[in-house]
């Protein structure tokens, strides 16, 4: 049995609104294995980033986690005190965001910002911290680390800023790294470099939860993946099963949309309709209004996750597993 870095069980989160509590995460369960990259994929508003924020305890008031457990190497984060949990972050769990410009302090040299992380979590001197930062810059592929150490964020390009963010996230050798759309703001040639860097980090033993809407990125670097739709996990499988034998109609729709674009079909495949409003979810399966194999049963009750193959689960009544060859 492989070691699990992160286990999320039945996580629910919601926001109170005038129309009642809107449930943004509905019994989300997922696992990130040690040294592996786990993908979390879905369209905007499906709850990918909320899941990440819940794990990092970053959901803003009035939003709140209503139930569920988050375990980091077996340690329950929910039962911890605020201070204790705060110290864990940056050291054992860290996160990088889509836009590195807004997550760096614009009036502080980037080197100092990375030093700060080490000084906060470990008993080291300033000199040692600087040495560690420079080593980490080197490892994160920041060219000419000594010079970049004294740069301000605006003096660096987008790719370099993201490398600095990765250096900052990895400097205390965390067990878990959450990367929320880390390459979405970057150009393709730079994206490829950053993805390579993330793969290298995972090989050193860090479990990575990679959040992306880009199926290409997911296919290239992840070992396992979860597909989310309207606050729920819709399908979960290892990466090859997911792309070769997608079982949920939503996953199938996404994949055929992407492949029809690549193969230059005359009319591109689409998923009809739009992502539903979370405060007005349809009865039964929340994908049913857009699903082309929707049955009566789908409109009446919501399907549960069920296993249809080894390590392959899906939230759909109609889905069938692949019979073993």
């Amino acid at each position: 049995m492989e070691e699990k870095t992160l286990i999320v069980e039945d996580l629910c989160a919601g926001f109170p609104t005038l129309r009642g509590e809107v449930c943004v995460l509905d019994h989300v369960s997922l696992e990130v294995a040690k040294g592996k990259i786990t993908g979390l994929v879905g369209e905007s508003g499906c709850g990918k980033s909320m899941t990440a924020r819940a794990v990092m305890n970053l959901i803003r008031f009035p939003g709140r986690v209503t139930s569920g457990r988050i375990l980091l190497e077996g340690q329950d984060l929910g039962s911890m005190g605020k201070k204790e949990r705060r110290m864990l972050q940056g050291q054992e769990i860290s996160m990088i965001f889509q836009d590195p410009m807004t997550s760096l302090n614009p009036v502080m040299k980037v080197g100092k910002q990375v030093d700060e992380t080490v000084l906060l979590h470990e008993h080291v001197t300033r000199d040692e911290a600087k040495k560690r930062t420079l080593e980490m810059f080197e490892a994160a592929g920041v060219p000419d680390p000594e010079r970049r150490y004294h740069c301000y964020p605006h003096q660096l390009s987008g790719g370099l800023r993201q490398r600095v963010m990765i250096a900052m996230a990895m400097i205390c050798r965390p067990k878990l790294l959450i990367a929320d759309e880390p390459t979405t703001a970057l150009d393709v040639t730079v994206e490829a470099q950053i993805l390579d860097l993330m793969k290298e980090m995972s090989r050193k033993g860090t479990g990575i939860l990679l959040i992306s809407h880009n199926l290409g990125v997911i296919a290239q670097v992840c070992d396992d993946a979860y597909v989310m739709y309207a606050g729920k996990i819709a399908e979960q499988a290892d990466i090859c099963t997911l792309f070769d034998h997608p079982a949920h109609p939503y996953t199938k729709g996404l994949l055929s949309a992407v492949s029809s674009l690549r193969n230059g079909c005359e009319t591109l495949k689409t998923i009809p309709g739009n992502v539903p409003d979370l405060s007005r979810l349809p009865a039964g399966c929340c994908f049913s209004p857009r699903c082309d194999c929707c049955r009566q049963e789908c409109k009446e009750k919501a399907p549960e996750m069920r296993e249809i193959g080894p390590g392959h689960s899906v939230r759909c009544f109609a889905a069938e597993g692949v019979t073993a060859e």
Partner: protein
Amino acid sequence: MSEVLLEARKLYKAFPADHHRTVQAVTDVSLELEKGKTLGLVGESGCGKSTLGRMLMHLIPPDSGEIQIRGTTVSGMSEAEFMKYRRMLQMVFQDPYASLNPRMNVRNLIAEPLETYRMYESREETTRHVAELMKTVGLPEEFLYRYPHQFSGGQRQRIAIARAIAPDPELIICDEPVSALDVSVQNQILNLLKKLQQTRGLTYLFISHDLSVIRYISDRIAVMYLGKICETGATEEVFREPLHPYTRFLTASVPLPDPHRRGERRQTLTGEIPSPLAPPSGCRFHTRCPFATEQCSQEEPALRQSGGRQVACHLSPN
């Protein structure tokens, strides 16, 4: 030979920056837009593709160079003189959250261009035509009096497209029109744009950084790097056999949605686009190019014709 709708010759545009420096946004760019066809303009951020689009739209004047519409020079015209041509050119922007006035309802948003060009006599007639346009772009007529915030991103982009086609233009400049949308919705919009092109004979200049989108929609493509065009050609030819090293790396960098083909790409480019404040001497790509020679760092390669294609590289065979 098909008809050339718009032609740009040797366009230059620089913007002033701090410390008396200038940003060379567009340098020596020439292109032709054939009627009824799509030219895809592709490149990374900051390469000058949006600036070029805006110059062709007459939104910013070029420093030098010439833009002709059907053989008439329009660059340098005053806004009043240009008014005749303005109706022929329309634009669709990337962010449908920013490009629609939040205080105008859909009827007024789409009617605005119709009223500007006084296309219909009465208010009723205009509204009737707005409803027709909404049907064309796939929006239900009931939404006539709704406001932009009541729509999703895809629907807003449909409104923006309805506005663009309202005055019956000939050319639409699409500046990253699907980049802010999710895949399933992105395909809906691309299908719509293609359908409109077929039914209305529209010409598109399609600006995007997304190579799979560009490949799908374009008949020809032009690849830009640091303000210059480095390669042009028929879309399939360029993708099948890229001549410029930058195009080769660009096409190879796209992450394929297929986990079985991981080993295949992985010839990644090092470094990033240099600052347009101080573009490198010689070939602008030589600082990142693994094949660069002494000549590349000194001499700037000209865009040379080879067959139906153009490439600006010292190393490409004739």
